């Protein structure tokens, strides 16, 4: 594939208005993430809980 054809192909895939681009976006949304993917965001939840505990302990020990 020539460089020009590759660039056109990439444009079609990336463009939010071209049909191929819309289809690519749909494929992204349809991809099933891992079942335990939300566990990847667990560090944020744990830090939120830790900050609540720190605030309570900090108040209690005043």
């Amino acid at each position, binding site marked *: 594939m020539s460089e020009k054809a590759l660039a056109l192909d990439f444009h079609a895939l990336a463009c939010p208005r071209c049909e191929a681009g819309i289809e690519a976006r749909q494929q992204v949304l349809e991809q099933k993430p891992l079942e335990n*993917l939300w*566990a990847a965001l667990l560090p*944020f939840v744990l830090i*939120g809980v830790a900050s609540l505990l720190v605030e309570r302990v900090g*108040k209690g020990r005043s």
Partner: protein
Amino acid sequence: MKTAHHGAILSSGLLLGAGLGGFVDGIVLHQILQWHNLLSSVHPPVDLVSMKFNMLWDGIFHAFTWTLTVLGLARLWAAGKSADVPWCTRTFVGSLFVGWGLFNALEGTIDHQILGIHHVHPGEGELVWDLGFIASGLVMIGGGWLAIRAGRIELPVERARLRAPRYGE
């Protein structure tokens, strides 16, 4: 006599440190250096669709770091309005480092080691990079803890600096 409590300043620093540390990870490692994405070990970004898929999950990752930062700002604002919270720089900076260190240690343990969804620098020697990332978090937690302790020793002086409630408070 007023009593001082560090709780609010500690929790705000912890949240802000974790949020800003998350942004360093996302901006430097995901975007500038492009070493990894949130799911790059399970959905390698080898074509446009998988790149966009990783971009989507990097966005969700950034949304969570943004949320921590906003919560930290809200706590800091509340601490600033409370007359019984000592405005101690060492305590605040120490808690920022504890927050950032906690982020690295938890993210490094859960995402890199337990789930294996990405590695700091995939390829040869990735375990060394991963362990170094967790170690950097533990060092920051230790350093931050020492700064917080130093802030507590300073408390008698800081207590004198507790500001009087402003007009209307």
